[in-house]
């Protein structure tokens, strides 16, 4: 066991840090043009879009999870822009690399990497949530175009996106899963209506999207007709990984400890209260176990080994810890719980933790609910029989 970086990785770390010193200044953060230039330079240096081949605008590096970790941490350390955020980069690009046609890769990947194309994910429907494969949005091939009719929901940021990748029922006579295809289309067209939904915390991040004869060219299908379920599987896997970063849990926990140091409880810093200390230490045990399981996974990934059941647990652990932190935070901030945080009037104080109560619930729902996740751990991880 050795948690230190090897000589070659230390050298790489130094190289990345030198690159950042020469190419990034924090005052560039508000300049979109400077940010795109920086992303291009960083991609040229091999630090961004490492898994995307150069012909599609990436840097085509061989996989190295430790280098990826070094880049992530070094970039985060100076708040330098990383890869374009969102489901386009996280989900669609890996899916296209796996299953897309040559033409699709060329037309969509480079523009997604630059942010010109911003993607919405059209999966859930009002009648198809956890039972996603029961979806009913219909696609018919008419005169060289797909005509799409139906509705999607919980579509994050659809109102800010240019395109959608969606699961659509194109083979009504085939089985539940075998009738689904994976289609791409533009959102800015007459057949598409987008209505943002107001969330419990007042934000409007996800939307309902209605289709009335929305159109997509015939060859904007990824994989064959009826293969959509299989195609989407590679995508979901990528999302699970991205939600499961243990270091995020640790960062959140460290912020709570900071809050407890500066909040006064019974005329003393809250961190000195025995109940608060016990609660925080209890969460810390959980956070550290999650983080150490993360080290193990990283070590397995680096050696090309399978981490086993803990690889299925990241999302649940993150979610549960998020809930524990929300509950402990509400004890720490006391009557600040009575105030709704409002980011429009400046930086909120302790009441910002009220948002954690609500956002930690979103984590239990998005990307597969916790109840479904527990089924997956039980069936795939523990080998229990399926329902």
């Amino acid at each position, binding site marked *: *066991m050795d948690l230190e970086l090897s000589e070659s990785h230390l050298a790489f770390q130094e190289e990345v840090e030198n690159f950042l010193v020469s190419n990034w200044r924090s005052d560039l953060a508000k300049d979109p043009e400077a940010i795109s230039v920086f992303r291009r330079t960083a991609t040229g240096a091999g630090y961004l879009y490492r898994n995307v081949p150069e012909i599609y605008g990436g840097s085509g590096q061989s996989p190295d999870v430790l280098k990826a970790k070094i880049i992530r941490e070094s970039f985060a350390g100076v708040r330098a822009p990383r890869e374009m955020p969102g489901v386009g980069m996280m989900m669609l690009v890996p899916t296209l690399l796996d299953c897309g046609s040559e033409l699709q890769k060329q037309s969509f990947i480079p523009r997604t990497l630059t942010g010109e194309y911003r993607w919405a994910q059209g999966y859930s429907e009002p009648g198809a949530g956890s039972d996603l494969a029961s979806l009913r949005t219909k696609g018919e091939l008419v005169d060289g175009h797909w005509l799409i009719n139906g509705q999607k929901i919980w579509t994050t940021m659809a109102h800010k996106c240019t395109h959608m990748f969606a699961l659509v029922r194109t083979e009504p006579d085939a089985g539940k899963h075998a009738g689904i295809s994976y289609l791409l289309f533009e959102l800015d067209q007459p057949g598409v209506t987008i209505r943002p939904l107001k969330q419990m915390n007042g934000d409007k991040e996800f939307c309902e999207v209605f289709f009335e004869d929305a159109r997509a060219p015939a060859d904007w299908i990824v994989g064959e007709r009826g293969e959509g379920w299989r195609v989407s599987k590679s995508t979901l896997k990528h999302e699970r990984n991205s939600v499961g970063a243990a270091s995020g849990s640790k960062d959140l926990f460290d912020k709570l400890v900071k809050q407890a140091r500066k909040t006064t409880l019974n005329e003393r810093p809250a961190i000195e209260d025995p109940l608060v200390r016990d609660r925080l230490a209890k969460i810390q045990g959980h956070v550290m*176990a999650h983080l*150490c*399981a993360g080290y*193990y996974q*990283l*070590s397995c990934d680096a050696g090309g080994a399978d981490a086993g059941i803990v690889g299925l647990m990241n999302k649940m652990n993150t979610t549960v810890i998020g809930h524990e932190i929300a509950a402990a935070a509400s004890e720490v901030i006391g009557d600040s719980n009575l105030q709704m945080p409002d980011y429009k009037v400046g930086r909120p104080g302790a009441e910002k933790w009220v948002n954690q109560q609500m956002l930690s619930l979103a984590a239990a729902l998005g990307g597969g609910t916790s109840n479904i996740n527990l089924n997956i751990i039980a069936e795939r991880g*523990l080998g*229990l029989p399926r329902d």
Partner: protein
Amino acid sequence: MDFHLSEEQEMIRDSLVGCYSQCNSDELLVQKYDREPALDDELWRAQLALGLTGVMVPESLGGLGMDLLTLAVAAEVSASYAVATPMEYQCLAAWAIACSDSQTLIETWLQPIVLGEKIATLALSDEGAEGGPDSLSTHDGATVSGIRRFVPFAAEADIAVLTLGDGKLGLVELRHDSVVREAVAPLDRSRPVCHLRLDSTPVVIFPEALAQRLYDAALILHAASAFGAAKRCLDMSVEYAKVREQFGQLIGQFQALKHQLAHMALDTEPARFLYWYAAHCWDIETEDARQMAALCKAHLGEVAVDTARAAVEVHGGIGFTWELPIHIWLKRAMADSAIYGTPARQRARSAELARW
């Protein structure tokens, strides 16, 4: 960056599994459990044959020169087979003597302990190295008096390594006339305990202040042992859910059971890597090593008791019986959780050590 056991560590683990699954199978374990609680001679000889006692003793002094992580992994395996020997205490006593910087201690005791000719235990205060209400006192530096409660395997041990407060360690011979070993009915029959009453008992004080390191190492070993118990309870529960039928189907098909088992796994599986990490921190003496030892003991102690209790629930009525061995691991988990300071006590220490 490598967060894996070494090949050598895996080899030791596998050879222990091989040994215990033969000599301490569940059937044998259940038979043995009705005997008077005592050191299991057969398993003790098997452990000695593997050379485990010297695992943390430097090679220059005839040991294997390995680390606490290795011993912690061995402790996990011993726990998962509920092995009734003082191996972990013997190994830590050997380590402390080897590091004592005292020629007398090393020459007199190290070899007999490594060879298993003498049995050693630890008599640590719940208060760790800092002393505390049950701390033994030594006025003259040559004898020690007082009571130390719940000392594991004290009935069989020849010597005990004691914490004496102020970071000091001492060694006493338990066969001395001044020592009274008061029998206690142990909760965990695989690790019998005695109260030690010392009355002007001759003591050799260790020149090196090793009490803190020894206490932290003992916390980590009990955390590893708690993990072994939790993992065993989880595995038994999962296996049972795959064979037991009710309402015309396997109970493992019911979501209520699936979710209960998934939660047990979520608590247990990642915790293995916390005890690995705490042991590694102890081995390379990181700044937060002491805090990690306390946090790891608190976390594993609680996870193990919760998981063992849930395992009883999964099994239904049979889980509450003496004939099904789950209670053996529930009791081991309860003992691991309580010894040297309960989870809440360890969390308070962890908070202190984190400078909160």
